[in-house]
């Protein structure tokens, strides 16, 4: 496509139009205006929801202030995670080193908030000036008697995925510290759900109804104490592409805990996830309870969903999200409401992820890695999309062009996971696609026909 730079062509694939191949999981191209953030961002999003930990960003003010209260990750108790702590490094700290300031800031904040642990995030310049963060963390940990964990998240040291790994490395040090007596043999950790809009509470309720004990939320509504006992669980149930898979692998290595990959988005994947957990425990009674749960939940949502399906049938969707794994579920969720996905992309997908997307999407679907406004806007226009699903940075692209939008990122305030989440999703899509405001945007009010009209005339 013309909108894409030459070096970007290999990161764009069209299902069925060529043998599958995809350049991905590499550094963003300079000057391409990537939608990605950095290593720090990866670490910050994963650890952020741990609500009783102190999250101190060691660096100049920007990194902390742009991530202040940035996620819709709810807590049922403490809310320390919603504060933005920074060492706010100044020029003198850069010249003479920031270790002393870091030490003093840590002591001050730990004394003030009495957190259960502290995560200290490294930023770009800390990596350059060479502050020994680990040494400062060790010292404070000894003095204050809580885990103080350095997160090696210098922004330039890779992409967002490297940040996930750094976060998992930090959490690995917590796991194994707690008492695991009394944990049920039917027990799991929930990995990769961040309790956006309270989603993990819903998922936990499903597991409780099945008879499964949840030991630790990693990390939605997360608690340090729970993560410290996480090695007592029988199974790690991992959602999301890459963010916590590393930790599951580490726990397999360290404690032999197996893991399952799941997704809580959409009816199919949600049900499948619960069945997979029930199957793992090989308990017939649990499987029966799970089937009942699914049946009951579906009966609550399907009548309303069918109503939306009728209105939305045949409309086209585009998806651009952080993790590719969520995209799989979204492709299926759109099918549930009768819609067709014509473009799908992610910031951090792997070759396997994209191959899977190529396998489940219709011929002609555009698949893209690490895209940018230039490409995304061209895709939206080429495919004459009815709704775009993405995050804050994708929203103005859609809106400017007069395309409906569904927020499906970590800032959203609507619960989209679980069975009732699917209903919310359908409502969100319906509420945006069916709004009368599109009648006035140039795309629809102008001389050119919309694709519905195109199709109508084509069918005549």
């Amino acid at each position, binding site marked *: 496509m013309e909108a894409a730079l030459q070096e970007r062509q290999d990161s764009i694939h069209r299902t069925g139009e060529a043998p599958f191949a995809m350049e991905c999981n590499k550094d*963003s*191209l*300079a*000057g*391409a*205006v*990537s*939608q*990605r*953030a*950095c290593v*720090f*961002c990866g670490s910050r999003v994963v650890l952020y929801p741990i609500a009783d930990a102190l999250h101190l960003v060691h*660096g*100049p*003010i*920007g*990194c*902390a*202030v*742009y991530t*202040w*209260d940035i996620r819709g990750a709810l807590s049922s108790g403490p809310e320390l995670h*919603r*504060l933005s*702590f*920074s*060492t*706010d*490094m*100044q*020029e003198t*700290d*850069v010249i003479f080193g920031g270790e002393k300031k870091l030490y*003093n*800031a840590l002591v*001050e904040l730990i004394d003030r908030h009495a957190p259960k642990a502290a995560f200290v995030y490294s930023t*770009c*310049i800390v990596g*350059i000036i060479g502050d020994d963060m680990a040494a400062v963390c060790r010292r404070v940990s000894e003095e204050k008697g809580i885990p103080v964990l350095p997160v090696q998240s210098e*922004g*330039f*040291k*890779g992409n967002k995925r490297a940040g996930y790994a750094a976060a998992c490395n930090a959490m690995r040090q917590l796991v194994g510290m707690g008492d695991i007596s009394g944990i049920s043999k039917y027990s799991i950790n929930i990995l990769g759900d961040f309790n956006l809009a309270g989603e993990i509470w819903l998922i936990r309720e499903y597991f409780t109804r099945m008879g499964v004990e949840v030991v630790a939320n990693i990390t939605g509504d997360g608690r340090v104490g729970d993560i410290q006992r996480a090695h007592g669980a029988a199974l790690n149930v991992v959602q999301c592409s890459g963010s916590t898979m590393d930790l599951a692998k580490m726990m397999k290595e360290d404690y032999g805990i197996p893991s399952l990959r799941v997704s809580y988005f959409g009816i199919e994947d949600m049900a499948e996830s619960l069945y997979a957990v029930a199957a793992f425990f090989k308990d017939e009674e649990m499987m029966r309870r799970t089937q009942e749960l699914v049946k009951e939940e579906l009966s609550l949502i399907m009548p309303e969903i069918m109503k939306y399906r009728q209105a939305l049938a045949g409309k086209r969707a585009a998806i651009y999200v952080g993790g590719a794994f969520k995209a799989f579920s979204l492709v299926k969720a759109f099918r549930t409401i009768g819609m067709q996905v014509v473009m799908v992309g992610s910031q951090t997908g792997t070759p396997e992820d994209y191959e899977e997307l190529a396998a489940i999407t219709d011929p002609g679907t555009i698949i893209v890695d690490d895209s940018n*406004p*230039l490409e995304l*806007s*061209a895709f939206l*226009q080429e495919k004459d999309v009815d709704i775009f699903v993405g995050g*804050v*940075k994708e929203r*103005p*692209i859609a809106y*400017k*062009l*007069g395309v409906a939008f569904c927020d499906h990122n970590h800032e959203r305030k609507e619960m989209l996971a679980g069975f009732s989440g699917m209903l919310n999703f359908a409502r969100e899509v319906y509420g945006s696609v069916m709004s009368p405001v599109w009648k*006035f945007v*140039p*795309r629809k009010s102008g001389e*050119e026909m919309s694709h519905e009209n195109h199709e109508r005339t084509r069918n005549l």
Partner: protein
Amino acid sequence: MGKILPNYVSTTNACKLCKPLGASLAFRGVEGAVPFLHGSQGCATYMRRYIISHFNEPIDIASSSLGEKNAVYGGGANLKLGLKNVTEKYHPALIGIATTCLTETIGDDVKRLLFEYRREFMQDGGPLLVQVSTPSYSGTHMEGFHAAVRALVEQLTVESEANSTVNILPGFLSAADLRSLKEIVVDCGLTATVLPDFSETLDGPALRDYPLIPKGGTKISDIRAMSGAKATVEFGHTLPDQLSAGSHLEKTYNVDLHRLGMPVGIRETDRFFEMLSGLSGNPMPEKYAMARGRLVDSLVDGHKYIFGKRAIVYGEEDLVIGLTSFLAEIGVQPVLCASGGTSGGFVKAIEKAVEGFGLEIPRIHEGMDFFEIGELAAELKPDFFLGHSKGYTLARGLGIPLIRVGFPIHDRMGGQRLLHIGYHGAQQLFDLIANTMIAVKQDTSEVGYSYM
């Protein structure tokens, strides 16, 4: 005197942003320009997200996306590749290159790199390249904003014939403010170069095609000719000389510089109109005389609802100074004026703004964060907060309203359409403040009366 705050080492919930964000906003206000950050990818993306959440508009900020090797061996190659790619796809007239803490710390010599780039890739022409040094470890987004404006003038303006335009350097205003400012100048019979002007580039209409570089912004040819203007009007009591584009124009081209406060409230707006009258030789247009008259009339109508109310005002220094001046005029007692900025001129300017109104001198703090504001807030017993969205949690905690002004407005629609300046802006602010206080009284009233 009240509570003395300890000198905290850590920062919690900062009341400032970082330098490159300010520079990006300023560059976005130039016609045909693309802001470009020389640093790691995250900076550009975080700032885009932050700016988008306020303006609800696209803003493409390019990045040299430095990786680990570049951090070790220098970011030159990525900078050049990035410029090449932006040029190829965006066809910009200008690329505004701001550094970040990473590239400042590794010591990239951007000036030299751009010299090389021009030699290697721009033999057949290409965009103008304007560069500014904006390490986030010194100063706030406002220093970044002013530094970028100054860099534009230093690097673009050339000797030109004397003309009758007026340079206006407004600082960081809303899109609505900029539109209003331009209208005022035209109504006064003047031609002005307003730099920067993102009134359209960050607040544009719905379109059929994605605007890679939206229409609008200060014309480059106008920036070039700022040397020939008959005067420069620059807003900002706390703007230091070395960051002032007006000072540069005065020193280099002898353009008279008039430094005014941001025209918020009656007195500062009066001063601005006096200045414009002086420059145009015309009296204040009837439209504004009427607006001023209606404003004063409404202040009388509503004065009882707000007299003696106590306000905490926070945000960028010059905006807080303007707002405080207005609060003094309408009988509100500012109890705390706070900013994350540290210009050194804040305290004096606030003291001057409240002088002569029989008010207590408020607590005035530079370099403050929201934790510290919160520490003082409880004992100061404010009736409302006046500032951007980030004070919401504190206001909610105290059960008092937050009246939203400035940047960022992340939790309401229309931040870009808030009008702060001129008589019309003062009118909107007054109605907002008075109605907020009336609503508090009404909502907490047991009878729930339906008239004022």
